[in-house]
């Protein structure tokens, strides 16, 4: 896999997350991701693999990523002045032919791909509502980057108390539902939505380009399918969850 070395131009810590950007002009589809590494091989061999991160935003000049430090991979990225990233990978959200209002649902760091998705919908003139769920007011801070978003927190310290679905009206009202977050949340969204519904799944990845068969999700009638090439965004109905 080809990696590009890019200097981090801007870095900000918002609530529990890190937002950083580098100069790259795109294009990128909402929901696509990059594999990111702290340094060029073999700068670190622990971890050895790159980490998948969704594109957060792309304004034609700068590209940004938003991430949560979970383990060593993201901890090193959080310290880097320069990172190694791939070109955009995977299949993003399908916004073709959608004209009614859309619902965008994000859980925790699953907000990441919704910013650029909202930007795309605006460009297309498609109205949308954003609903974001977090553990607490701390992590919910990122919602200030989503003007008009309705927020839920599990501990009730910001917005309504409960999950992201508690902040949203019945999903049938929407022509399309787009969601990203932990698998249990995605499963709940799948149950709640009965129309066009797309979910961005998170599976552990080895390569990001279809080569290793690590990142599979079960798809109705097709067995395990690689989420890095056929996803990470899937039609909810096709997922055999």
């Amino acid at each position, binding site marked *: *896999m*080809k*990696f590009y070395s890019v200097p981090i131009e801007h870095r900000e810590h918002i609530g529990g997350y890190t937002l950083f950007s580098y100069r790259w002009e795109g294009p990128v589809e909402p929901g696509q991701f990059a594999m990111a*590494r702290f340094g*060029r*091989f*073999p700068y670190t*061999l*622990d*971890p*050895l*693999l*790159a980490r998948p991160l969704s594109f957060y935003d792309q304004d034609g000049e700068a590209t940004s990523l938003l991430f949560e430090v979970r383990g060593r991979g993201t901890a090193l990225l959080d310290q880097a002045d320069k990172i190694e990233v791939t070109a955009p990978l995977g299949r993003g959200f399908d916004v073709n032919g959608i004209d009614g209002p859309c619902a965008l649902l994000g859980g925790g760091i699953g907000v990441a791909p919704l910013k650029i998705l909202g930007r795309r919908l605006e460009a297309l003139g498609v109205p949308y509502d954003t609903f974001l769920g977090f553990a607490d007011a701390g992590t919910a801070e990122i919602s200030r980057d989503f003007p008009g978003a309705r927020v839920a927190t599990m501990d009730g310290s910001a917005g309504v108390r409960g999950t992201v679905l508690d902040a949203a009206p019945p999903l049938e009202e929407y022509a399309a539902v787009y969601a990203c977050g932990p698998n249990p949340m995605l499963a709940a969204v799948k149950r709640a939505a009965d129309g066009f519904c797309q979910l961005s799944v998170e*599976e*552990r*990845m*080895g*390569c*990001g*380009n*279809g*080569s*290793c*068969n*690590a*990142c*599979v*999700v079960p798809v109705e009638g097709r*067995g*395990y399918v690689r989420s890095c*090439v056929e996803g990470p965004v899937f039609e909810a109905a096709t997922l055999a969850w």
Partner: protein
Amino acid sequence: MVVRTSAELAVELCGIPLRTPLIPASGTLAKEALGEARDVYGAMLPKTVTPRPRQGNPPPRVAETPAGMINSIGLQNPGIDRFLEDLDAYDLGVPLLVSVAGDTVAEFVALCGRLADDKRVSAIELNLSCPNVEHGGLTFCAGPASVAEVVAACRKTAPDKPLLAKLTNEGVLGNAVAAEEAGADGLTLINTVPALSVDPWARKALPGGLSGPAIKPVALRAVYEVSATVEIPVVGCGGVSTGTDVAEFMLAGATAVQVGTASFVREPAEILEEFAGYLEKAGSPARQLTGGLRGYQGS
């Protein structure tokens, strides 16, 4: 990045001319990622194929370890029928090797039968070693007797196709000799090393095969000892990540070298470029490196 291939880089494996000694390791380069393989590899080698489709193991299928990764894919593949339908997608204008695995000797034979007369296929790699798919609790390369049995049977079925036996590290010397005696034309050493990753917080474990830089010295030892013992060519595999790694495997006795895990974290063209740089400094064409150690360092 495009490296111009040259006479310096060319090698010959079992009579097959390769424009570079690099080959993708089976199971680590998908059709979708062939773009970066162009002009880099001397041959193409897709993921192991089995008689029927296999859906593989449930995720998570990978875990990381220091300088390595563990995988437990479970040989997910579309089965030989579908594989042969799609085979043209692997045409990179270089020789195509096909890796096969069966649950029984008869299955190996059936697979070789399907490939024996296929003009698109330059050689067959017998995956005798995948530690993820168990047959009576053991793999085909659990011992010399079963290695010999499979190899001899495949040899008979595909008399005109070069056969490479791919072995694990455990018991490698005995198995290598058995494969040679049974008629293998070459050996691929080594497959992943059985290993375990433990998540101490979730208290869960992922057993699987270890690959990546961590196993390079183990693979080098296997290549060194086996190539000093057998007459057939050896293809080195395990942790190759840099141009000097390629040189190390060839000096230890390999005729060609496979790249797997490293291709997930860097561009294979970089490895080839580094190797070309090594050859230039060393003043030697690739084909003259094989077995070129001057002796042990300590002596």
